[in-house]
């Protein structure tokens, strides 16, 4: 096994294990912290694909900003292990079955997708994720959609301020 493979399996195990812990944890604060661990593992995968910019932006935006806000809300509402409502057994069973069906659909999709067959992950030689190439692609080929997205973000920001104003 090469170093890349070892790292891939380690990061995958970390991501899946942490994701399971997000669901299993009784305490919502623990769930958030495990979710942060998931983001770290996914950033590790991005680095393996040589997408350094994506990796670090994933950390700054999700782990650094959004999850901190999640923690804020959970800490301020003082949610604890015992304040989580207990669902009955049938609900849990229905959740497991529907989740399993969804997983099956996803797996079969990935297996049958023509786009993905015979494609190799560009672990070292891929360089589209480097900031220089990514910037060139975004601002040459996809500039219209990029600008429209930024307008969308701006309107969301202004909307948040308008809603947040008391008077």
């Amino acid at each position, binding site marked *: 096994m090469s170093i890349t493979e070892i790292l891939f399996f380690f990061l995958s195990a970390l991501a899946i294990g942490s994701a399971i812990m997000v669901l299993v944890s009784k305490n919502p604060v623990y769930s958030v912290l495990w979710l942060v661990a998931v983001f770290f593992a996914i950033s590790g995968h991005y680095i393996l694909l040589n997408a350094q*910019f994506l990796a670090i932006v994933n950390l700054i935006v999700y782990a*650094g900003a959004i999850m*901190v806000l999640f923690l*804020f809300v959970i800490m301020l509402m003082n949610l604890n292990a015992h304040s989580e409502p207990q669902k009955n057994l049938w609900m849990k069973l229905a959740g497991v079955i529907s989740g399993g069906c969804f997983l099956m659909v996803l797996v079969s999709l990935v297996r049958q997708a023509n786009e993905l067959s015979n494609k190799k992950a560009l672990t070292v030689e891929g360089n589209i994720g480097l900031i220089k190439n990514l910037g060139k692609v975004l601002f040459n080929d996809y500039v219209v959609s990029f600008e429209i997205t930024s307008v969308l973000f701006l309107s969301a920001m202004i909307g948040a301020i308008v809603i947040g104003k008391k008077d």
Partner: protein
Amino acid sequence: MTLLAFDWLLIIEKLVLIAIIVFASLGIALYTTFAERKVAAILQDRPGPERAGPFGLFQPFADGLKLIMKEEIIPSSANRNLFILGPGLAMTAALMTCAVIPWGGTVSLFGREISLQIADINIGILYVFGVVSVGIYGMMIGGWASNNKFSLMAALRGASQAISYELAMSIALIALLMTTGSLSLRTIVEQQMALGHLWNIAYQPLGFILFFICAMAECNRTPFDLPEAENELNFGYHQEYSSMKLGFYLFSEYVNMIMSSAVMASLYFGGYDIPFFNESVLPQNIAALVGVGALLIKIVIFIFVFMWIRWTIPRFRYDQLMNLGWKSLIPLALVNMLITGAFILARM
């Protein structure tokens, strides 16, 4: 020596470099605590610590020993795991910044060219921001796990302050990155070292002032030390901590201060560049060592300015802090960015 198709000498080289840099940072941080007390004493016209050793030079060791020997108390209603995780996370995040800072040029030792930087990644400065945002967790987890209202309030204050000032900081930085065209700290330093190119402070004076203010807020230094405002919150987010866990929290503040000084020196003050001097006339190894010395001197000057401000200016009120961040610094940073963009367009 290749096993697993890997250059193990490179690993050894990097491990040695990491060990040196981490221990040097901790050593400097140790003496920064001493310097803080001495500077405070001088500014307040009193002698300061002077009993332990000549001029009180052994004082930091005495303090460290005292912290380690103190009884370790974990409150019975605290969340034990997170209570322990908090200070560790704060300290780790503080030390992780040192990986991307170029501490000097390249040295040639044993026939190898060794770059005095742990990792020259092409997103260096974004990495710093990533680590800073992870550092917030140390404070938040510690404050929440203590199960104390004052600690929680302080942690929430600290986190919201850090997020608010990170915005202005990154916008101030974007203006600088527009002029450098690179995110790698080594490239930024080398550009400033080139002949006929001034330090970035000459091109981005307003950007530097904004960055400096925000860095002070990120380090929780007075006048931005609201998370530890004693008169409102007793002691702040580390109120329930004792022994070396408290020491880690207090110490990480000093490590943060050193790292932010190093980042500012690299971004705006030429990093390991010696002013008014062409390093290429010196032999390579000596030039690299002198460069490290130059960077350390710049860091020490920054740390002194940090302390000078701390013991001169009183603390902000919370609403003043938020008004300054959102209503003054962010608009100023945006204006700075627009002016820089206009200049670059005009020169093209």
